[in-house]
């Protein structure tokens, strides 16, 4: 039983980390675009891909089994928030503020850390 809860926690942590990884990718790409090192069209393509992937991740986090409901809701909200930021930016050919992406990234990393700590299995 412990092993099963542990597996669920690790799976949940991986999902949260993947969300955070997309956030980090967006931040890094924006940073490079501001220095003119990557083309703008690439950043827009990245935003659009990230939005789709993060929407899928939001659903997967929502379907996670054996995880505290509150933690699941928070992680889903952070992921869907990131998906919305990236999607809006891609549609408007703009860039979301780095601070808002960073904040959501840190939230997801903290939740992944908490899950890896193993104290959140239902």
């Amino acid at each position, binding site marked *: 039983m412990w092993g099963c809860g542990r*597996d669920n926690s*690790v*799976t949940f942590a*991986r999902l949260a*980390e*993947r969300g*955070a*990884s*997309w956030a*980090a*990718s967006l*931040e*890094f*790409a924006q940073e*490079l675009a501001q220095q*003119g*090192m*990557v*083309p703008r*069209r*690439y950043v*827009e*393509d*990245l935003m659009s*891909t*990230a939005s789709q*992937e993060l929407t899928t991740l939001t659903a997967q986090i929502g379907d996670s089994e054996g995880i505290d409901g509150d933690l699941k809701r928070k992680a889903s909200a952070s992921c869907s928030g990131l998906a919305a930021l990236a999607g809006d930016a891609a549609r408007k050919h703009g860039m979301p503020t780095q601070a808002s992406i960073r904040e959501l*990234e840190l939230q997801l*990393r903290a939740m992944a850390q908490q899950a*890896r700590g193993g104290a959140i299995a239902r």
Partner: protein
Amino acid sequence: MKNLTKIGLGILTSVGGYLEVGSMGTAIQAGAAFRYELLWAIALGTVGIAFLVEMTGRLAAVSHHSVVAAVRKRFGFRFQVWPLLSQILVDLLVLASEVGGASLALELATGYSFRLFVIPVAVLIWALLWFATFGAIEHSVAVLGLVTLSFSVAAWWLGPDWTAVRHGLVPHRPATDAAQYAYLAVGILGATISPYLFSFYSSGAVEEEWRKEDLMPNRIVAALGMAFGSLVAMSVMVVAAMVLAPRGIEGEMYQQAATMLSLPLAHWGFRLFWLSLFIGCVGAALELALDVSYIVGQTFGWAWSENQPPAEEARFALGYSLAIGVATTPSILGIDPLKLTMFSMAVTVVVLPILIGPLLVVMNDAEYLEQYTNGWITNLAVTTIVLLAFVLAVLAIPLQLMAQ
């Protein structure tokens, strides 16, 4: 002098053609997730492929048989059907990954969806095979493939921690995510010991009419070419470890990894990334499509040569045309090229024993190799590496699937 030229060209071909969608994708993911900890998998795979390439080159030089032709002759057609089906499956999966990778490279360059580029990429590959000769394909791919050395320049510029790099050359139990670690190790081994590499090499050696005088150049090219080539793949892992890992970027899709050369190579970094991906994938796709024609032709005893005009070898040309057509399907359906790559590499490792077992029997048969049969070191090294990779795959794939 002639031998030196042959060795130089051989090493150039190995280095320029080493990096493709599998070796690049697995090295990026491994470096981003585990930094230098999976360098050993590239080193181990390289030892395996160097032995296999040397063996199959020796077989071609001494017996004038390709791998498939020799196995068919030794075991009969009924037996050869199973290795043939396994290799066609693997070749088509990897070919599909390469077509997807090249299309994705064009998405990075233009910002338009990779699905738009699948058919143009497939037509380009087909046209090159239709109009070019074996030598032209081999050498142009090798020269253009040298663009992948930009990863080695980037790794050198970034200045990795050499103690950690050395530590990574020895397998260690990871602190976390053992299943993902093992799955990535399997992926790297599958990318490095891809069966098409040695069956294509032996077919090429027969096409170029190698003789016993070519045994020494073959041995040097197999050892040095693969060693230098593996340094490029290791460089990809090092750059991913130094650029992506500290930022928490996992590189699960090529779009995430496309920035990895931008810090060390500035404005050139992004262009060199997609160019390396494109050239590496097109080069490997050419070899894979040809390999399908080679192995089918050699199994059925048809005429097979890339140097003949398609009209004179219609079945050979039909083989690669069909293979390219089938390989476009996953990308047209929108399956992510990197995810397809990881799956293809895992399947490759699972079927390796079916392909390499019969080859080892042939390589120990004096009827084919005369006094040049395998020594015990070659037999032991190849058997150990292939079985280790197989066991790792059987353990890691279900765990990874469950985790997902």
